[in-house]
């Protein structure tokens, strides 16, 4: 049953992609989008069916595993095409398929006026397939397939508008930068193989669970750090986050699906999936939370000054991903996943709403040229507002619950640490500030639109607004699955998945009693931070809009620094990209290849041989007397040799 369901979940997007990819050019736009949406819809249906199936059999097995065929086998190294389905997978597949389906629907409207729809839906379907492969894979190499596959689709979709250089640049950058992280993933798999003799989850996890704390801790730390390097690349963490802001060159539904809701969270999923390994390597976990926390803060600071709506959202995504890593890093994996889920809803909503704005404004993204749109785009405004509230951690919306769990964990979790908590809380405040700044600049205040746009601006069609509303609904309610007591909280739900890791961590780090009191206090701080952020945003951008400029002027350098995103791209360019290129172009190729090897090593001896020949042939002067002298020379030399030397 399950094996069929999972296949049924995986196949529709693949078939859809194949159909559209091969024949799409001959299909009408309607057929293309119908195939695309239908495929993702089917996939969602089967994902939910699989979820129900698992739940109905809960208790009999913690997870489902089935191998379909052997993919790579070499010696002991076996990587099957095998699927692995447990509650974590359930959460992921459901989130992914639901969001994906909604975004597919949305795209029908969004891509209405674009060319190459078939390409778009092909890539999107392929992406869905790859993403599902990623989360259902039962071994590391297959997960890597999904991992790279989504990267490929990301590359293709970012570069969807390939005639634009910035788009193709961004796509290439995304692919290459995430691939740098993949070095870690690859090596991590290799190390896992040489450590455990297997690369499939159940074997590896089984071995790991059976080992005591501090056993082979060094190896575990190495494995986890390597895997985390992969996650850093994919989930755009410091220092490899640079590709994500540029990825906004892609169509907005893509940004919503890939670069907000699903693909970028793959890293978090991976860390959660391998929680048992990480539990053996507390040092690695500390690195995870530290990187996560720093990224969250760092990206938030950049987001403060962004004027491009989508870029602001991108930095926000980076920041939120940091949160998720903090959750995992401090040992509350469920919280990380919880945030992943809620974030998927509200962040994709934000992007889609931004897309709706763009759609209405002919692609304008500069918030300084917007304002007052709430009248022209009421639905968009409303849904954007909901999502903003959710991400800012306003109570009773999804973001509040998930963020709160992470913050609590940051303080109280097995590996929690006060500075992580405080930095995260500060970030929460900044998040509220910049999100509301964006909200206000876009939808409130006086309109700063161009004259032409003023007339053009319109609400999007229902094809786009319906998914917005649906997502808004999820953004509100998704948080409630996480409530500890009234419902069967997500943490409890995921208990079977994380139990071994939690147990291990608990034994190693007996945590201080998590009294309800302190949790409430912590909640208070975060609420306060959010409120402060919202208040400041209101003051700066609605009440007295001249203040930001003054602050910017007074901060001068710092503002410039933030506006230019700390010049990270420039620094990378100067320190890594350019040197490599210059060395290759100016040294390796001309000097080493052409000069040293070919010149000295190859043509050198050849030239020497020619030179020698040139000298030797001079013997042949044509003069008979010289010839006789040569003969005599030979005789004298040989005679001398055999008489005196030999």
């Amino acid at each position: 049953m399950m094996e069929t369901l999972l296949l049924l979940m995986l196949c529709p997007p693949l078939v859809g992609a194949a159909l559209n990819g091969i024949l799409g050019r001959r299909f009408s736009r309607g057929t293309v989008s119908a195939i695309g949406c239908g495929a993702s819809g089917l996939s969602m249906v089967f994902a939910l069916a699989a979820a129900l199936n698992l739940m109905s059999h809960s208790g009999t097995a913690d997870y489902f595993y089935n191998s379909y065929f052997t993919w790579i086998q070499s010696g002991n190294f076996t990587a099957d095409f095998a699927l692995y389905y447990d509650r974590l997978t359930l959460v992921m597949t459901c989130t992914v398929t639901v969001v994906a389906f909604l975004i597919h629907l949305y795209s029908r409207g969004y891509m209405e006026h674009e060319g190459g729809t078939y390409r778009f839906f092909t890539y999107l379907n392929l992406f869905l397939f790859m993403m599902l492969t990623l989360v259902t894979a039962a071994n590391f190499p297959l997960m890597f397939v999904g991992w790279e596959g989504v990267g490929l689709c990301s590359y293709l979709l970012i570069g969807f508008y390939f005639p634009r250089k910035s788009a193709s640049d961004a796509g290439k950058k995304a692919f290459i930068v995430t691939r740098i992280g993949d070095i870690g993933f690859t090596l991590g798999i290799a190390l896992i193989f040489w450590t455990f003799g297997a690369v499939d989850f159940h074997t590896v996890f089984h071995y790991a669970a059976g080992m005591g704390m501090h056993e082979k801790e060094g190896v575990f730390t190495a494995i986890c750090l390597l895997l985390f390097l992969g996650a850093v690349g994919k989930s755009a963490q410091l220092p490899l986050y640079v590709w994500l802001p540029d990825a906004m060159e892609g169509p907005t539904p893509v940004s919503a699906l890939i670069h907000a809701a699903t693909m970028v969270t793959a890293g978090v999923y991976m860390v959660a999936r391998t929680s048992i390994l990480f539990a053996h390597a507390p040092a690695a976990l500390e690195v995870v939370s530290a990187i996560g926390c720093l990224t969250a803060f760092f990206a938030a600071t950049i987001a403060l000054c962004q004027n491009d709506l989508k870029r602001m959202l991108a930095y926000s995504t980076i920041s939120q991903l940091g949160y998720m890593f903090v959750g995992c890093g401090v040992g509350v994996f469920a919280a990380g996943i919880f945030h992943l889920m809620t974030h998927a809803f509200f962040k994709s909503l934000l992007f889609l709403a931004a897309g709706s704005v763009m759609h209405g404004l002919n692609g304008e993204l500069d918030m300084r040229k917007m304002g007052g749109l709430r009248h022209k785009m009421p639905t968009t405004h409303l849904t954007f507002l909901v999502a903003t509230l959710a991400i800012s951690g306003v109570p009773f919306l999804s973001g509040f619950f998930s963020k709160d769990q992470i913050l609590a964990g940051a303080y109280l979790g097995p590996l929690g640490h006060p500075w992580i908590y405080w930095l995260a809380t500060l970030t929460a405040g900044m998040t509220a500030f910049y999100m509301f700044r964006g909200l206000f600049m876009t939808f409130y205040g006086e309109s700063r639109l161009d004259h032409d746009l003023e007339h053009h601006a319109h609400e999007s069609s229902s094809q786009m607004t319906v998914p917005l509303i649906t997502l808004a609904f999820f953004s509100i309610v998704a948080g409630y699955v996480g409530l500890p007591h009234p419902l069967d909280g997500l943490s409890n739900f995921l208990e079977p998945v994380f139990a071994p890791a939690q147990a291990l961590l608990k034994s190693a780090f007996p945590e201080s009693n998590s009294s309800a009191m302190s949790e409430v206090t912590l909640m208070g701080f975060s609420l306060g931070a959010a409120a402060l952020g919202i208040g400041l945003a209101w003051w700066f951008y609605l009440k007295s809009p001249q203040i930001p400029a003054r602050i910017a002027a007074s901060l001068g350098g710092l503002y410039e620094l933030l506006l230019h995103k700390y010049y990270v791209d420039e620094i990378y360019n100067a320190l890594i990209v350019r040197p490599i290129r210059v060395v290759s172009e100016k040294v390796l190729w001309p000097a080493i290849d052409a000069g040293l090897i070919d010149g000295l090593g190859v043509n050198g001896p050849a030239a020497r041989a020619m030179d020698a020949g040139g000298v030797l042939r001079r013997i042949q002067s044509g003069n008979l007397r010289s010839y006789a002298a040569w003969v005599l020379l030979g005789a004298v030399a040989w005679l001398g040799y055999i008489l005196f030397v030999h």
Partner: protein
Amino acid sequence: MPILFYIFGALVILAALGVVLQRTPVYSALSLIVVLCALAVEYLLLGAEFIAVIQVIVYAGAIMVLFVLVIMLLNARREVPSSRSRMAGWLGAPLLAAFLFEMLYAVWDYLPAESANWPAARPAGPAPIGHLLFQNYVLPFEVTSVLVLVAVLGAVVLAKKEL
């Protein structure tokens, strides 16, 4: 007897120097005839009467006549000094000296004693020589005839005005 050998030996060397040093081919040719005749005397002293006679008749007589004839025919005058061979100019003399030294060294190494214990000379008149020639060396003898034939052929084909 030895004194005769040395006298004619000196004559051989002097005449040979004449061959080498004369710039006019005819003088060289005349010097060469002297060399050949002096050598004939040496052969005689070494007990090779028949060869000594052949030397004078064939070599000094026939062959050298040919040389002189060609010199006259081609009107070969005093040679024009030219030095287009740096190799021969610079290395020639040292090489020759070295060669002579090496050969003498080897010969002296081989014959250290000054003793001159020659076996008794065998009679070397035409009869014993002829006997040997047609008994042991009949094949070389016949082959020389081919050689002479080749030479005749060659001389004709190369020197004849029209073929």
